[in-house]
């Protein structure tokens, strides 16, 4: 069985933003579950990494939070994307796209050509 992977530093923020964009306001547990599911259960998100990341995003104004109730009626803190967050998501998605494209080319080019 493959070891579950911890989320890489820096990418978690982007995943959180993307999750909130895709699903709308969501609590911390929901975000964690969603990221794990989307990754096909390869990633594992524990709250030691998740909550500091959420805090940082909130301090920087990308997400906002308020208390609400979950579908099974539990009190939880819901996070939602702000306008600044949406902007950042778009920008970083674009940058990631470029970075991965470049890396792809680079890694492809190192293969011995015939």
């Amino acid at each position: 069985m493959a070891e579950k992977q911890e989320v890489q530093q820096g990418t978690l923020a982007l995943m959180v933003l993307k999750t909130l964009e895709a699903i709308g306001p969501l609590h911390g547990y929901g975000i964690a579950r969603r990221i794990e599911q989307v990754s096909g259960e390869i990633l594992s998100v524990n709250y030691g990494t998740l909550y500091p990341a959420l805090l940082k995003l909130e301090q920087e104004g990308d997400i906002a939070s308020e208390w609400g109730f979950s579908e099974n009626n539990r009190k939880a803190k819901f996070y939602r994307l702000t306008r600044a967050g949406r902007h950042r998501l778009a920008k970083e998605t674009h940058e990631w796209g470029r970075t991965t494209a470049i890396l792809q080319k680079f890694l492809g080019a190192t293969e011995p050509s015939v």
Partner: protein
Amino acid sequence: MRKLRAWLIRFVEVFRNQQREAELSGELESHLQLHIDDNLRAGMSPAEARRRALIKLGGLEQTKDSYRGAAGLPFLEALIQDARFAVRSLRKTPGFTAVAVLTLALGIGANVAVFSVVNTLLLRPLPFPDSERLVWFTGNHGQGGLSPTTYNVGSYEEYARHAQSFEEVTCYQTFWGSSEYNMTGHGEPRHVQAVMVANNFFRTLGVPPALGRTFLPGEHQKGAAPVALLTDWFWRQEFGGDPQVVGQSVRLDNRAVTIVGVLPASFDFAAVFSPGLRVHFFTPAVMDEIRTWGNTVAMVGRLRPGISLEQAQTETNLLSPQFRAAHPEPDWFMEYSADLSYLKDHVTGKLHRSLFVLWAAVALILLIVCVNLSNLMLARLASRTKEFAMRGALGASRGRLVRQLLTESLVLSAAGAALGIGLAFGITSYLARQSSIALPLLNTIRVDSAALAWTLFVTVLVGILFGIAPGVILSRSNMQSNLKDSGRGLSEGRSHDRVRSVLVVSEVALACVLLIGSGLLFRSFLRVLDVDLGFQPSNLSVVDVIYDGGAKGEKRGPVLQEILSEVQSIPGVESAGIADMLPLDRDRGWGLANPSREYRRDADTGAIVRIVSPGYLRTMGIRLIEGRDISWQDTLANERVVVINETAARRHFPGESPIGRAATGFDNKPGTVIGVVADVRIHSLETSPEPEIYLPLNYGPEGAQLVVRSTLPPATLTSSIMPVLRRITPDQPNAAFRSVQTLVDRSVSPRRFFVLLVSSFAGLGLVLAALGIFGVISYSVTRQTQEFGIRMALGATPGLVRRNVLGRTLKLAGIGMGMGAVASVVTSRVIASLLFQTEPGDPMTFVTVMFLLVCVALTAGYFPALRATRIQPSTALRCE
């Protein structure tokens, strides 16, 4: 932008710690619950669901901890935590805290107060726009009194017209006596002081009127309708701050004068130009009227931008001989040279050294306070070694512990500063109200933002200074062994003791320097008070007599004679006399020469003149050396007579008796010297007497000061004499008698002010040094309880023990005194120019201070010594 926002939020978060903590707990709890719910839904048993969820999520406390670090500012939080802890631990030792805070408050308060004084007098610019371009003109190279160093109208006009270095040159009339008026037409008649100023006076200084306008050029012409400007304080006091006052008129000496404006509150003429003068009005100087008065105007110029003082000086040096050559007329008395200085330096320059000394004194006080607190903190540290060792064992790093100590000292110094600022506010507002101290700008002293910044600086500096020694010792000590120690403070050992001894020695040395300095100043002050004034100010009272009998002297003599004879018949009045101006108050310079002597062209034939009635000299207690006093028969119709002082006799009639000899220089006809009187102090107690002449009353319509010698207090004299005056001269305002002693007091007030401040700092230093000695000796006695117990058990007598303790006290004090004395030899040279008839190395002062310090040290050491002799060997050996 993002980062800034994040930092701001984190900063705010620091202050809502508990709320955040609760929120995080709630959030994590709900996370866990949601997870458990999911697990249950997946079919697990409740226990299993919870277990799995907890495993998945990882350590709860670690999460909280890292969250905390990211949410607030850990550094700031630690600081607040330290500060809270410091406050808590300081509250546990209220005695120590009270002594420390009080000491700090005195030290910091004194510093802030003196800083405010220094700031107002030296650092802050004068209260005029671009005041650094204002320049003062000093005539006659500063030689002589007010008359020779001022200018006549002609020379003022020449400078104003020709000096190109200046945007403007302006002047005011400095002989206040000629612009004192009796104000009527607005309530009770009252005596008011006006200052006559040139047309461009307010423009040059950059003072716009608060209401109305300043003077128009035409108003300085002879025959113009009289106008006046009100000062702010008088406007508020007399006219209730009524803006309608502009255009109203009052009567000054029975002339209707129109008020054309009110000056702003920020303009305080007296504070800058004549400390203590109460100015009610400004009036236009009518140049053609005062042209013939001789030297009466003081000049101020505003430099053109970019022109230096040196350039202006070069120009005036060239101009003054040209002016002289162009004016052969007899009233062009002198060269009318101009020594230029910045107005600020003219106003406060003489105080530089005094203020510097004052500042140095408070700095010394602050050092002593630091040393003292270092000592206290060390003692406190000694009794807390266990606490620190324990905290170290529980994981606090050494740096954290040192930081804790520093925080404690900063908390203490902040508390001291808070109290000290209050003290400084008290001192400065007290000083600002002291109109009897003849210091410029004193009434504008206040604790301003600069002083608050200074306080902050001093507070932090002090906190670090006295926190450092304990910090260093703590960081060097071996904490594990401290923890193991069972005995009280045994571990701190000799090095700790040595540090404390060094501190006490330096404290004594600093106090010694302060005491010797203030001792020298105090001795100078006593010498000044001892100066023979030449007159007897006790039991003398004075009041202004307002009599304007139509300018000429003929009618004036008889009226004043009537006043004097009536006053002298009032019971309780020993004698009475009249003079135009009193010594130490005001003076005018005329001239005196011996016509049968040859004088060099540049010889000083100036003489201070006083126009006096018969009996004035006797009333003042001025000794008649030779000849006779002026009598009522000495009028201008008869022979012209003059009484001269000893200095004048020595200078102009050397080696002969001047009585009966002819004298010139004060009248267009020669007069006869009829008497020689003792010198009186003219400008101040510290300047040596100058030639002085006394002339009969008919020489001048100037002010008249009625001097009365009586054992009755001034208030009683006012009520018995004023009705007589008002009957004879109906315009006499209801003035009160003042004691002549106040003139003397006022003259010595700046010196008294400095001596008082420096001595109180020295006294404070002495007390602190005594406390320091007491603390160290007392502590060492405690540490040696066992030793003394053993020694006494082995037969040492109480006397021997006491000698031992006192001997150590004296050794510490002695080393400190030695160092202090050596340092004082240097510092007393620095203050040498502030001393009066006192040598910087005055043995009397040195010996007295040493004796005082030995006494204080012995007293401070006596109580611990006494305690040492009372140690019971049995208890001492049993304890610990």
